[in-house]
């Protein structure tokens, strides 16, 4: 039981830890306050508890596919917020204006809260299944602690990797990683809609499970970072690529808009 608890908790924690490390490192890069992220953690934990209590109601809504609707809406919202967040990333952001700093604060708070709600809810439901006896509960708690430890450590590792990047990569790499994470989430949102029968599913375009199985450690890490799937459908690929392009386009345009007045001012 301990091992499966390690795996399940690690899978949930890993996804949240990766996004958090990206947000913390960019917040540091921009010289912004960490308040948004901390508030997001607190709100997220509270709302994960509420969501886990409401999961029965959520599941039975929308003709029994409420969970799928809930997940798809959550993921889409996170993707949109990440795009908005990335659009504001700039070295000089802290000096640009208080309004923008406030906006970044709110956006990062919401992203963190939503991610913690999604992952935390599942952890709470999992653990709640073992509350009847201490004999069952103990290995789950031990496994959970180990899983959390590994997940958080990986997040910290990514964070230190990112903040120690050479100057010219310091902005590009976190943005690229955020773009990939967002694209993976968009593709995942489509899967939920297919699972709920709300979007017509398709035969997968390819099967790369012989190369990289989704059950392998590499597969799991790639899933958390890139949204890797061994058997994606065309609709997932369309959403993945569209999100990636929109993300990049928004970042490029927002940077161009910020730099344009500065150039004009210099003339």
């Amino acid at each position, binding site marked *: *039981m301990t091992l499966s608890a390690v795996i399940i908790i690690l899978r949930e924690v890993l996804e949240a830890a990766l996004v958090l490390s990206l947000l913390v490192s960019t917040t540091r890069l921009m010289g912004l306050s960490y308040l948004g992220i901390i508030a997001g953690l607190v709100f997220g934990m509270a709302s994960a508890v509420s969501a886990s209590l409401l999961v029965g109601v959520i599941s039975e809504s929308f003709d029994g596919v409420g969970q799928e609707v809930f997940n798809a809406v959550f993921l889409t919202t996170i993707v949109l917020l990440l795009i908005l967040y990335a659009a504001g990333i700039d070295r000089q952001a802290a000096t640009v204006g208080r309004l923008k700093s406030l906006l970044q604060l709110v956006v990062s708070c919401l992203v963190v809260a939503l991610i913690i709600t999604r992952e935390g809810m599942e952890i709470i439901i999992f653990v709640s299944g073992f509350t009847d006896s201490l004999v069952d509960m103990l290995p789950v708690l031990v496994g959970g602690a180990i899983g959390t430890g590994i997940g958080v450590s990986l997040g910290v590792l990514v964070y230190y990797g990112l903040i120690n990047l050479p100057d010219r990569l310091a902005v590009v790499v976190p943005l690229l990683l955020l773009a990939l994470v967002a694209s993976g989430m968009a593709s995942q949102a489509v899967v939920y809609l297919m699972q*709920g029968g709300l979007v017509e599913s398709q*035969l997968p375009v390819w099967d790369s499970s012989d190369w990289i199985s989704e059950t392998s450690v590499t597969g799991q890490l790639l899933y958390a970072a890139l949204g890797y799937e061994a058997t994606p459908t065309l609709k997932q690929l369309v959403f993945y690529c569209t999100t990636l392009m929109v993300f990049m386009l928004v970042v490029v345009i927002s940077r161009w808009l910020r730099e344009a007045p500065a150039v004009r001012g210099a003339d």
Partner: protein
Amino acid sequence: MKTQLCLACVGMWLACWIAPVHAGVPVYQIEIREHLFYPAELRVPAGQKIKLQVINQDATPEEFESFELNREKVILGKHKATIFIGPLHPGEYQYFGEFHPETAQGIIIAE
């Protein structure tokens, strides 16, 4: 005229994505009892959409999970869940209960 044509195209494109019609979709049931799936081996037709009804008879929650099918769904104790799968290529697709993977293992065979 051009606008109408464009709207019609967009409408048709959207219709391709939204699939509210579930009439005629075959329904299959899987039960969870004592952290085991019944039947542990389920045969379904390949190449078409299938509606799975997973009934959790246990008092504890379980998560239906399958990497091969790209599906995951939490099912609370004494609850049932609807999961659409397919169309599938002929072959074997493993699934498991993520909360009790030691015992809760099953396979769906598309043929």
